[in-house]
């Protein structure tokens, strides 16, 4: 049994901030981050139908600073709205990895919690947070727009209070998530996104970033170094 939510994020040894304004600055940024969220709705299932009313004139998400975006590069929130089949899960993971941190995942509908009405299905992934760090679950079949907005507000307050750090867990415990993914997709699973490289580059490595699963990955992974602009005469 895996635990829902409450992802334990070990705080890394913080760099000494000498600037006295750093705290104010951080809080300003957190405030802005919470007031401006671009969401990518990965409409996998029926829950997607509850989003249009949440966005349009009846509930108007834009007054909270939330607006839809279409590519993972621009988005902050990944809304997984409904059941995730194994095949879709691959794409959800790729999409998540292509988003830029800080990034948040919201699982909408019961299906993302435990498979929902597809609990018996061989082709539906059950617990989303085994594969991705989920910030907020909004259970229900389907949750009404009010519930969706409540979930988003919960996320907003988490971010504002500096608690929306689930995305760091993906880097710090990458081996765990990768293991679960490999368990489902087979050992030759890989995405074109170099998560380990990112963790190194942004100094987000944790104790469990590497492990047996990342070793399995490294054995067959196609190289993902960026082409370097160079003058070789």
């Amino acid at each position, binding site marked *: 049994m895996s635990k829902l939510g409450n992802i334990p994020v070990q705080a890394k040894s913080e760099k000494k901030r000498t600037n006295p304004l750093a705290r104010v600055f951080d809080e300003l940024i957190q405030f*802005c*981050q919470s007031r401006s969220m671009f969401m990518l709705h990965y409409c996998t299932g029926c829950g997607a139908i509850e989003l249009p009313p949440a966005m349009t004139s009846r509930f*108007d998400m834009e007054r909270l*600073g939330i607006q839809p*975006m279409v590519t993972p*590069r*621009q988005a902050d929130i990944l809304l997984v709205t409904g059941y995730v089949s194994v095949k879709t899960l691959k794409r959800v993971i790729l999409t998540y990895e292509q988003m830029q941190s800080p990034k948040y995942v919201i699982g909408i509908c019961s299906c993302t919690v435990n498979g929902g009405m597809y609990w018996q299905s061989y082709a539906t992934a059950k617990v989303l947070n085994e594969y991705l760090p989920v910030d907020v679950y909004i259970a229900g079949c389907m949750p009404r727009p009010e519930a969706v907005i409540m979930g988003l507000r919960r996320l907003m307050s988490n971010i504002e209070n500096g608690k929306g750090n689930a995305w760091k867990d993906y880097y710090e415990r990458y081996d765990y998530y990768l293991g679960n993914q490999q368990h489902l997709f087979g050992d030759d699973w890989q995405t074109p996104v170099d998560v380990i490289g990112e963790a190194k580059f*942004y100094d987000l490595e944790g104790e469990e970033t590497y492990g047996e699963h990342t070793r399995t990955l490294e054995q067959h992974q196609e190289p993902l170094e960026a082409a370097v*602009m160079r003058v070789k005469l």
Partner: protein
Amino acid sequence: MASFNSISELLAQLLFMPMLAFLLGLVMVLMYRKIAARLQRRIGPPFFQPVYDIVKLYSKDTQISHGLIHDIGIVVAVGGYVAAVILLPVPGMDGIADKGGIITLSYFLMIPSLGMALGVGQCANPNGSIGISRALTAMLAYDIPFIIVVFGVALHYQSTSLVGMIDYQQAHQWGIFEMPLLAAAGLFALQGMMGKHPFEIYVAPAEIATGPMVEMSGKFMGGLFVMQSFQFYVASVLYTSLFLGGGANWFEFLLKIFFVVEIPMSISFLFPRYRTEDMVRIMWKWPVMLALIGIAFVI
């Protein structure tokens, strides 16, 4: 003509004109979103929403770059506009407007687009390339009426200097009363220039994933948000200078530019989107016709 008396005044203008343009542009972005919301019977974003967006985008912890040209593309997109606004006179500050003039300015405005196009090109994403191909086609569409309007206006005032045009209008009459047809055609072209509905085929979020912006994350996207606010500002101030007599004082100036930018913003949410070739067709037909008749009157 020489509008700066000392080097310090020029330096102050170099600093303040872009900042002012940026701030006014932010308000225009807010206005755009508010108008959209009100037309759709929503409340719309809070007052500081454009600031939140930009701060958020610049404070992203991770972001991707596809290479040096991708970075430089954003630098040019923002920097080109920063330079362009210095060529646009505002009340009390002429910058170096008399060194360039309207023809230079209209070509100057293509530099940010070209920079961005190069940056998008390096992303190696076909969605972006399709977006750029559509954006350049759109530019071909709206620039022809726009350039005819510019020609007519310059011919009317017998000058290409924006400062000269504004002085003339303030001494005589606003351009919109002397050249109503050109003004109408200019408004049409302005709608295309702003790249908003109904001429936003090159963004087309649902089809090509926001086209040029598809691979832009974090501060890259933030740069484009900054550029967008400049874009609104430049379009409105340019139109105000050509047809509404610029501004004698700040109050009048602000009133005019917000009035000008409000028109295309309101129109934009009333029409569905045009296809690329339909946009070219409509732009080459009505505004060009209006502008040519307008020129005939000017001559």
